[in-house]
């Protein structure tokens, strides 16, 4: 009896202190979650979520060439190359070099309802990515600020913030030379030249369909109708459908596209109404990617490690594979790329060849998918050109027949040029 009492005493006195790492993780979560009973009810988040889903689809973002708008712009530019000698890719790239900014007006369709679209965007100095943008549609505004993408939802007077500049309005990656090079593989198009009586200008109309615009399983087929000005070589309007046969109402229609040599920062200024609360955009991944992410043959085992340690380990292995161009290992760690042909995977890797990993950060944000917890981690790497890049990657934790493990879901937004 005495011994039992002593054991009870020992248990009552037992104390395993929380580590400073845990403190950091929990406090970071608290910092990230500005919860407010009055301003952030659970329900209305979906409204903006749907709008984000429309504009900011970001699965495997670097490899996802574009969503609606970007796809239309880029596909058109690439297709023209093959369509006619008047539309050589080099000419189009040359024509675009003069311009660093765009303004698009049109509409997007969601749930059978057409919503007006007004989008301003400016490319970064490399001409490859959106640096600043402002997109307005019914009830919502999306803009970029300090390397973040923000979305204001009028229905709950809340601004949702994502780190990085994500697939801004579908315009990322910007239709620059690198993207065009990747897009030269697009096929199945028809081009017709005609006159536009309203303007007296010659136009080329291109139609095409793309089966897997966003990589394996992520987006369904898309079809496009693009109108080019023959003299300037520039795209002047476009329509896209989420089917391969241009059936039904287009999901996006860019009625007018204007090009600018540059635009001042003030164009992209947006102040949400006073009283708007700020919160983080929930970290999640598209359901369409879950079947790939659950492949038990992919990833690394998690057991015996904390999530922080598992993230460090998988990212170390991923960057090592990128540096050595070990495509099989990249596919194994990043299952969404499993079905990609070597050529595509190698080409995409070549875009910013990584020479050195400078630092892999800790978990900055967490989320949840149906498979399990998600973690967002920054890495700082140096490219062969000497540029330091900040890359955010999402790691998916899951339980499979092989036990607890984790895989890389993909990039979150686009690599940012960072200072050392």
């Amino acid at each position: 009896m005495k011994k039992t009492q002593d054991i009870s005493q020992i248990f009552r006195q037992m104390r395993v202190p929380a580590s400073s790492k845990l403190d950091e993780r929990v406090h970071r979560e608290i910092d990230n979650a500005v919860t407010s009973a009055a301003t952030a009810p659970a329900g209305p988040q979906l409204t903006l979520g749907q709008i984000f889903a429309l504009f900011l689809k970001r699965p495997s973002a670097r490899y996802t060439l574009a969503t609606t708008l970007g796809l239309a712009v880029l596909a058109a530019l690439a297709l023209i190359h093959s369509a006619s000698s008047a539309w050589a890719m080099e000419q189009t790239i040359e024509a675009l070099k003069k311009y660093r900014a765009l303004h698009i007006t049109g509409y997007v369709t969601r749930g059978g309802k057409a919503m007006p679209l007004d989008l301003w965007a400016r490319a970064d100095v490399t001409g490859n990515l959106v640096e600043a943008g402002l997109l307005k549609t019914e009830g919502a505004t999306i803009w970029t600020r300090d390397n973040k993408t923000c979305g204001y939802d009028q229905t709950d007077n809340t601004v949702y913030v994502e780190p990085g500049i994500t697939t801004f309005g579908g315009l990322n990656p910007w239709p620059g030379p690198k993207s065009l090079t990747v897009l030269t593989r697009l096929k199945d198009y028809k081009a017709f030249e005609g006159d536009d009586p309203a303007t007296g200008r010659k136009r080329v109309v291109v139609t095409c369909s793309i089966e897997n615009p966003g990589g394996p399983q992520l987006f369904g087929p898309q079809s496009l109708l693009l109108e080019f000005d023959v003299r300037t070589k520039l795209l002047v309007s476009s329509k896209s459908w989420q089917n391969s046969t241009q059936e039904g109402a287009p999901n996006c229609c860019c009625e007018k596209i204007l090009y600018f040599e540059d635009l001042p920062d003030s164009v992209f200024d947006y102040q949400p109404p006073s009283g708007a609360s700020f919160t983080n955009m929930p970290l999640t991944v598209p359901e369409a990617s879950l079947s790939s992410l659950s492949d038990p043959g992919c990833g690394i085992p998690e057991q015996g490690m904390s999530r922080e340690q598992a993230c460090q380990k998988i990212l170390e292995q991923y960057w090592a594979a990128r540096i050595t161009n070990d495509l099989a290992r990249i596919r194994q760690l990043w299952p969404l790329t499993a079905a990609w042909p070597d050529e595509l995977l190698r080409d995409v890797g070549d875009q910013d060849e990584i020479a050195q990993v400078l630092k892999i950060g800790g978990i900055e944000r967490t989320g949840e998918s149906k498979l399990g917890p998600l973690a967002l981690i920054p890495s700082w790497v140096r490219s062969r050109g000497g540029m330091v890049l900040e890359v955010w990657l999402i790691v998916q934790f899951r339980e499979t027949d092989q036990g607890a493990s984790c895989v890389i879901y993909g990039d979150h937004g686009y690599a940012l040029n960072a200072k050392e």
Partner: protein
Amino acid sequence: MLREMQLVWRFNRGHTDALREIYEQHKHALVTLATALLVDKWEAEDVVHDVFVVFLRSGGRFRLTGSLKGFLATCVANRARNRNKSKRNHTPGEAAATEPAAPDNERPDLATMFGEELRCVGGALAELPYEQREAVVLRLCSGMRFQAIARMQGVSTNTVQGRYRYGLDKLTTLLDGKLSL
């Protein structure tokens, strides 16, 4: 209790400092509980982290019906049980919970977790079947009632009392001579 209610009231209204206070108040107890249940400090910290993440997402609609300490301890116990279950499902051969644990002198991590003095307690805990360990730890570390543990385990109170008694007996045997009892 009044202080807890006030904290929860502030937490529900978006005062993050209230959540910080809740975390600071309970973190060591919860990590101790999770470590005793899982005999793995890293897994324990993941569990506590996950509990707080879920808890902070409940801000605005959380209703406190008992003590906050009891609520958080129950959350930790539930998560730890799920984690243990999944580990057991994926351990080839004999189930993890009934597998003989490595002797505590072969587990230097036990000293890191529980301190040099109590490393043998960690080793002994690892040798208990999970249900017995849970009954002992929840009763002794968190002061939870048998009835509450029974509800959590989905068994009768008598079964929990039995698990507790067997667990404690086994611990007494395992620790005999190892501690200055």
